[in-house]
């Protein structure tokens, strides 16, 4: 009797296992024909230290999908998974999205994970456009891997050009986070362009995420820097600006798009950011109707103002939508067919969204748009001329 029980139990186990794998097998088969909606997949850090970027992109993309679905034409379904800013997890996310039946992808929010999975998208013939993965290596991984944001080197060049053209100062000090490819990428191109434009980089302070608490602002002051260039994210920017001001040292601070979000920090006096310049393709305070409507919807969803990442996520979904409708795509097409349409459309597509007017894409998958410099005046962003 007991023996029988054991045999029965083991048979049950095997059956349930078979059931599991059978189920997922069906899901896999379903991905081929697409179904009635276009499934947009992607991954980003929704938990951990980089979570705000993932959440911003996800929320921005959700708003775009809701708007598009309300139009009644092509219907979208969005699935952004949590990759914890880790390449290994991003690969798992990619596999889950494939099982889910992804048709088109937003790749990943951050650079490292994007690099880890871009060639999987390339191999499997899925169109992917990263909203904010800014390393040039990402789009080099394949011919249907695209990008919505600026590349890191472009930002460094644009910053150096602006500083030189507007005469903000000739002596520049750079703070670089050496374990962050975003920071090192921007800093490297900045230093190169600065030398070419006759700016003098009087010093550079390298730090890592392990010692990002104590900044030797005196080094910059003693070097006589008139401009402090900050190719960093806003948490570090805030600490560095604070450290400088505590010394009574007030150079011109120049940030890049990672500075976005500094004004929304809790418990930080925004007065300290007065006069800071930074590069960003998007400012929520811009008066145009599209930005205002997006800002209102974003605020309603999460209770704070959107940053550049949110706008990137929004724009990626719309760019994909525009390309699909222009190419006459239907929801029942397979991902490979959609990819062919997208690659064809993006050769000629011109899209105006939140992060730029008349954006086009070159053959490498890089976006062509003009970087904008903003200045903080009276706690608000003002376009600097």
């Amino acid at each position, binding site marked *: 009797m007991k*023996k029988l029980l054991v045999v029965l139990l083991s048979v049950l186990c095997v059956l349930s296992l078979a059931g599991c794998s059978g189920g*997922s097998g069906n899901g*896999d088969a379903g991905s081929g024909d697409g179904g009635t909606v276009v499934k947009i997949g992607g991954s980003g850090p929704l938990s951990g230290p980089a979570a705000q970027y993932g959440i911003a992109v996800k929320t921005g993309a959700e708003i775009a999908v809701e708007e598009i679905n309300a139009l009644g034409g092509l219907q979208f379904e969005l699935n952004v*998974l949590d990759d914890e800013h880790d390449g290994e997890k991003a690969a798992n996310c990619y596999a*889950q999205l494939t099982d889910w039946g992804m048709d088109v992808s937003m790749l990943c929010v951050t650079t490292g994970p994007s690099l880890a999975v871009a060639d*999987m998208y390339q191999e499997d013939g899925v169109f992917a456009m990263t909203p904010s993965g800014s390393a040039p290596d990402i789009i080099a991984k394949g011919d249907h891997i695209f990008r919505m944001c600026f590349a890191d080197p472009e930002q460094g060049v644009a910053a150096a050009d602006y500083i030189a053209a507007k005469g903000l100062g000739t002596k520049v000090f750079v703070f670089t986070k050496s374990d962050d490819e975003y920071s090192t990428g921007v800093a490297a191109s900045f230093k190169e362009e600065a030398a070419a434009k006759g700016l003098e980089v009087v010093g550079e302070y390298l730090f*890592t995420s*392990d010692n990002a608490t104590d900044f030797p602002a005196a080094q910059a002051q003693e070097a006589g820097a008139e401009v402090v260039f900050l190719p960093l994210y806003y948490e570090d920017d805030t600490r560095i600006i604070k450290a400088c001001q505590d010394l009574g040292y007030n150079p011109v601070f120049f940030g890049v798009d990672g500075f976005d979000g500094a004004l929304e920090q809790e418990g930080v006096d925004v007065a300290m950011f007065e006069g800071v310049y930074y590069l960003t393709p998007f400012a929520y305070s811009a008066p145009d109707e599209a930005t205002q409507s997006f800002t209102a919807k974003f605020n309603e969803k999460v209770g704070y103002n959107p940053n550049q990442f949110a706008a990137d996520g929004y724009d990626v979904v719309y760019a994909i939508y525009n390309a699909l409708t222009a190419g006459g795509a239907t929801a029942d097409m397979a991902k490979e067919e959609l990819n062919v349409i997208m690659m064809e459309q993006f050769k000629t597509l011109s899209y105006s969204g939140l992060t730029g007017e008349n954006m086009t894409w070159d053959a490498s998958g890089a976006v062509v748009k003009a970087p904008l410099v903003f200045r903080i005046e009276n706690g608000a962003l003002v376009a600097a001329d």
Partner: protein
Amino acid sequence: MKKIEETLKKLFSNQYRQRTVSYLIVVLAYVIIETAIRTGNISNTIKSLLIPTCSYIVAALALNLLVGYLGDLCLGQAGFMAVGAFFGVVAAAFFAKYISSNVLVLILAIVVGGVLSGACGALIGIPVLKLQGDYLAIVTLAFCQIIKTLLLNLYVGIDSRGLHFSFITDNTNMDPDGVLVIKGAIGANVTKKLSSFTAGVLLILFALFVIYNLINSRHGRAIQACRDNRIAASSVGIPVNKYKLLAFVVSAILTGMAGTLYGLGFSSLKASKFDFNLSILILVYVVLGGLGNMTGTIVSTTLLLVIPEALRAFNDYRMIIYSIVLIAVMLISNNATIMFYLKRCKEYCRKLFPKRRTE
């Protein structure tokens, strides 16, 4: 027939049962999963987990040798894995220029990764293992940090003239045909993903073979004697430091091999992945599986890697549920009542096969 029966009896005797079960579980899992892959009955989610799982299992087994048998706490597993991963990737890119067989390149890369990691193990083991107490844990932790920082600033390129190394800034000065394999903070760029599930399972079997043969040998008994009572061991003439170093280096070699397998399973690799948290994660696998219990380590590693992926349906609550599961498992595995029932289950299973026991 009699011979087969005798072999079986020997394999399941007290001396050999543990290792037989370990090997059997690995081989069985391999056969089941490989059949599923061949027949197309497997989801992409599971497929993508296979290679990392194999790597983590090998790293956890190697750590279990240290924690379970040597009795020393090592928090540098991530560092050894990083050495194996990055230099394995470089070695693979280098050998791929001269050798066309992927399998051979993978084997050579794994050997290089293992040897370099073992060398690092010896380098820090020689001064540190002479110390007693928790110093090893702290020093290996520091080692892990150092390796991470070094790799973040390392540039390695390959061109027709060979390998080029540079540090902090990219001064590799390669020929135009050169390719940067490691690019500082961006990490390693894997040109060809060579790792396969089969290679992973073979590496697990190799690790099991090495560990079981080591701990059941004269050296292994000496290692355990050092763990149980260092003074008593040295009083009977066992060179404690030598045996500690032996275990430490073997563990480092296996971890390096696991790192190479891991590195060649992804198309890009960041040094910041190999931080302190990864070491702790591997330690959790070992503790959960049971100190000195290799089968337990294999099972717990697999479970703890699969659970977070299986919980994706819970969205925002995923990590909370994962932590709760972790706490629950830790409590249950230490609960006397539940262990009592488990023991009864075991006895019951033995009664099912009375022949083998009575013969």
